């Protein structure tokens, strides 16, 4: 406390001679800086330094840049806490835009146009990459299968490979067709009429994958004259419909059409 009082009384005595020497310099620097703060940005328009002035450096300008009564902070603190954009570059061979003609609208248009192009390029790249993973032309080519049914005897079942999956084709007897048509829909877990499951009732075309968990059912087995899946005991009837066991749906009927009396194209 006592120390502070001593310093307080001593300060004016010490600062006076300092102020006398630094004063003119400080005033000059302050005026330079305040001109930059308030004056025109165009270098040409700024008042030229009077010839013979000794202090032109950026450092000396900054040291005592203090507008009158503006703040109580020391100049260096003020500069570091609120940096200004008024950096003094060497601009003797530069030409600045006149204020208001900097061309921001044009620049922003160009940038925005560019960003639209980047967005399209990004979209294109993502699409090309993601779609390159989809089926290739050769896979698509074998996605259709032509099957000649003339070799399938009545009452027998053949299995063909279509899209990597087994497809059962059964040449049904009239008795089997009759049996399928007579089943009451209320008895079926997945109610479907037999006529809705076969384009031509004589031939049943179903995908041979059990709708439970994917095993291949065995033909001519099970309690319903159809197929039996050995994995978990699903029974399918002669129309490929689930009758007993854990499978939820009937055997899938793929998309197929008759191109001839004895020829179908699956897929």
């Amino acid at each position, binding site marked *: 406390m006592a120390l502070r009082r001593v310093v307080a009384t001593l300060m004016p005595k010490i600062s006076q001679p300092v102020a006398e020497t630094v004063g003119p310099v400080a005033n000059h620097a302050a005026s330079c800086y305040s001109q930059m703060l308030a004056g025109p940005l165009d270098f040409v328009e700024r008042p030229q330094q009077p010839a013979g002035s000794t202090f032109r450096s950026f450092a000396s300008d900054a040291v005592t840049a203090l507008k009158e009564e503006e703040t109580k902070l020391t100049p260096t603190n003020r500069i570091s806490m609120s940096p200004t954009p008024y950096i003094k570059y060497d601009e003797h061979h530069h030409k600045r835009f006149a204020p208001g003609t900097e061309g921001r609208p044009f620049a922003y248009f160009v940038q925005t146009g560019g960003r639209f192009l980047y967005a399209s390029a990004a979209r294109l790249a993502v699409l090309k990459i993601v*779609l*390159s993973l989809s089926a*290739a032309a050769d*896979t698509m080519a074998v996605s259709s299968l032509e099957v000649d049914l003339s070799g399938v005897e009545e009452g027998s079942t053949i299995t063909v490979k279509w899209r990597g999956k087994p497809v059962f084709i059964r040449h049904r007897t009239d008795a089997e067709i009759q049996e399928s048509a007579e089943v009451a829909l209320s008895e079926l877990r997945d109610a479907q009429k037999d006529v809705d499951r076969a384009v031509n009732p004589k031939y049943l075309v179903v995908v041979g994958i059990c709708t439970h968990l994917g095993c291949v059912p065995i033909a001519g087995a099970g309690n319903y004259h159809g197929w039996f899946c050995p994995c978990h005991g699903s029974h399918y009837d002669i129309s490929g419909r689930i009758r007993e066991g854990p499978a939820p749906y009937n055997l899938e009927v793929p998309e197929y059409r008759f191109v001839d009396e004895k020829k179908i194209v699956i897929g």
Partner: protein
Amino acid sequence: MRLHNKVQLFSVINSHLISYPTPMNLNYSWNWGSLAGLMLASQLVTGILLAMHYVGHVDYAFASVQHIMTDVPSGIILRYAHANGASLFFIVVYVHILRGFYYGSGTQPRELVWITGVIILLVMIITAFIGYVLPWGMSFWGATVITSLATAIPVVGKHIMYWLWGGFSVDNPTLNRFYSFHYTLPFVLAGLSVFHIAALHQYGSTNPLGVNAQSSTLAFGPYFGPKDLLGVLFLALFFSVLVFFYPDLLGHPDNLIPANPYSTPQHIVPEWYFLWVYAILRSIPNKAMGVLAIALVFASLFALPFIRMGGGKFFILTEKLFGAFLADVLLLSWLGGKEITPVTSFMGLCCTAFLFIYLLGILPLIGYFETTVQSSNK
């Protein structure tokens, strides 16, 4: 506290990529590093996508590449982007290295940057070489020739060669291991690139003037991000023109002929980016010496930061000799694609000799003769 100061990951990204102090006088010669990173990313993406359709077996490889070209959606783009991407990767990296030579980027304290760079170049060369063999076209003869270089090793050379081949000739085992390495090495490259940049960030970039620039730096992100973006756009333009208009320009038609182990094409040459090495190899009549010459080239590249490789700015003689070095490498590349005649052999020998004189003689000594502009004016 702001997010990029608080979260460790963001703070790392911020300090190395956004606010990293970069000399403000870098010119466009400094763009090539980021462009090389971009090409690596492009090769990785196209390569991984190609690997979904390519079959690495001698009976199916060629056909699988044709399948990619004709059946796979956008497969033709993937294949050409990958093949031309390799060429572009080398163009970018070669210019990047030339920048290093001209501006003396590898001088102390950045020796580690230079050395990791040479390792990256070596890994790139190996990766590109084995990648070129994968379509199993006539380039398989290139594989035979280069792997046979192992016979230059006395006594055990032949056994090493059989070990490399996995058999008694370049065949399915060779193709399989080439595929495995070709998939793995680019990730090694990615790691090496991170190491390369980490080594650089120890001291920061050099600058065209070759003087200490730590007092006049700019934040990397706001200034050199857009500058790098401009370089990327120009590179993308050139890349697109190559891939979509001249996709076979840099390739060799021999690679479109299925591999035939019983006859070698007349004009078998490696890809253009290896021609300078090929020329050095062929210019020395002795097989073992040829292999040693190549090894010596890379050894001298490794040694350069330690035998003084000062920069060219303000050093007029050094600049002129750099020009001579550049011409020499270009001439070597041209010679590598030519048939061997007495004239081309002699030229190859001269060019190889000058290369070694430059790397091991001129570069170290020029620093002693040519110091500064001022002293040479006296």
